[in-house]
């Protein structure tokens, strides 16, 4: 089994535990062992946009140093926000030796970062290294007839310098959905921001936005939505359920992490920890019916 270095980030150890467990399971079906980094810290979640303050680059760069210290050239991420922050900080220091030198001289417990680590998102592993045929291969429960809306959000495709697909017309999630035997749903909110951290102090904005995104997906025929961002997941799942209660509106649309959809298609939904979701996806996945039939 091929071993790949994996950076989880904070959410995958807690609220998004079903993302991590399903990713570990799905990867094994593809002959890959995700080896968690021995030492890692928070990536900072949001990339610092100020040109003069290098302090906020230390978190992400330290993680790249740890990958280097553990002897790996590549580190794989699942969370879109971690992926974005690590990639942008990496790009910054690779293109600016002076800043890299300053950061290196500030960090005294770690070895110097040489700027040679590459950060890859799990979707890049599937698309570019394994290929969609390999992703299709372990499918035991083809998701035929299941309509899945891809939700890219912001961090997978923007900015273009580090985005893993075209920011206007991305296709990686559609190809991913098709490879598992489901139908991708086209709708106009696939890349529109969910409101992000405004969910903490401007909850109302996010409630409305979650309602807009999910009802658009539902109107386009989606049975469920997939994402790779734990913050998008919280907003589209929990905030959607609150929106529906408040507005007394239509049927909820469950939201799954990408690797949960893989785990279901590969025949193991136990690793998905669906009980952690605000909107239970089991009915939409017809898992309950299947379980009843098996009995």
């Amino acid at each position: 089994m091929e071993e790949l270095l994996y950076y989880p980030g904070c959410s995958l150890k807690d609220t998004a535990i079903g993302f991590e467990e399903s990713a570990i399971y799905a990867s094994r079906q593809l002959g890959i062992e995700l080896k968690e980094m021995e030492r890692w810290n928070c990536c900072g979640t949001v990339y610092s946009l100020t040109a003069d303050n290098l302090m906020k680059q230390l978190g992400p760069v330290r993680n790249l140093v740890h990958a280097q210290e553990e002897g790996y050239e590549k580190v794989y991420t699942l969370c879109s926000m971690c992926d974005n922050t690590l990639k942008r900080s990496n790009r910054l220091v690779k293109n600016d030796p002076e800043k890299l030198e300053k950061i290196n001289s500030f960090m005294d417990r770690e070895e110097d970062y040489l700027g040679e680590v590459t950060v890859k998102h799990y979707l890049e592993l599937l698309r570019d290294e394994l290929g969609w045929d390999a992703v299709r291969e372990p499918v035991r429960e083809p998701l035929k007839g299941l309509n899945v809306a891809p939700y890219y959000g912001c961090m997978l495709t923007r900015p273009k310098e580090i985005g893993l697909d075209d920011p206007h017309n991305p296709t990686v999630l559609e190809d991913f959905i098709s490879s598992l035997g489901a139908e991708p749903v086209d709708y106009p909110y696939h890349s529109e921001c969910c409101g992000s951290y405004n969910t903490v102090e401007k909850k109302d904005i996010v409630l409305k936005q979650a309602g807009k995104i999910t009802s658009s997906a539902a109107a386009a025929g989606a049975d469920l939505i997939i994402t790779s961002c734990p913050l998008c997941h919280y907003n589209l799942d929990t905030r959607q359920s609150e929106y529906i209660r408040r507005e007394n509106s239509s049927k909820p649309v469950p939201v799954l992490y990408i690797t949960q959809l893989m785990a279901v298609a590969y025949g193991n939904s136990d690793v998905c920890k669906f009980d952690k979701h605000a909107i239970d996806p089991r009915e939409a996945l017809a898992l309950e019916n299947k379980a009843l039939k098996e009995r």
Partner: protein
Amino acid sequence: MKLTDSDQDLVAEVEELSGENLYACFQCGKCSASCPFTDEMDELPNQLIRRVQIGDRRILQSKTPWVCASCLSCEVECPKGNDIPAIMEAVREITLRSNVDETDLRDLDTRGLPEIALVSNFRKKTG
């Protein structure tokens, strides 16, 4: 209209913090057209840039930079290559660096919120 020293300070500060070229903006409005949250803002993104260009320090009181969550929709649209979220961050930072936080932990009910939301919120709203 002639800019005073204090007006020009604002332009210089925002340019230094953001690393962007404020005068490159020719007010095409693509940033505001692409922004999903303009309904919640008191100044549109292009209006905020214009106010900085003319050195109007009242923009520091605007709600707009605190609604912007750096989703980068505008960043991929700007025909002049400006990173508008970095300009928003610069405007936020001027307030935060004067030792005024946009949030007070003591007033917040954080129960049930995921860590990813809390960390990003506090990274953006505290100095």
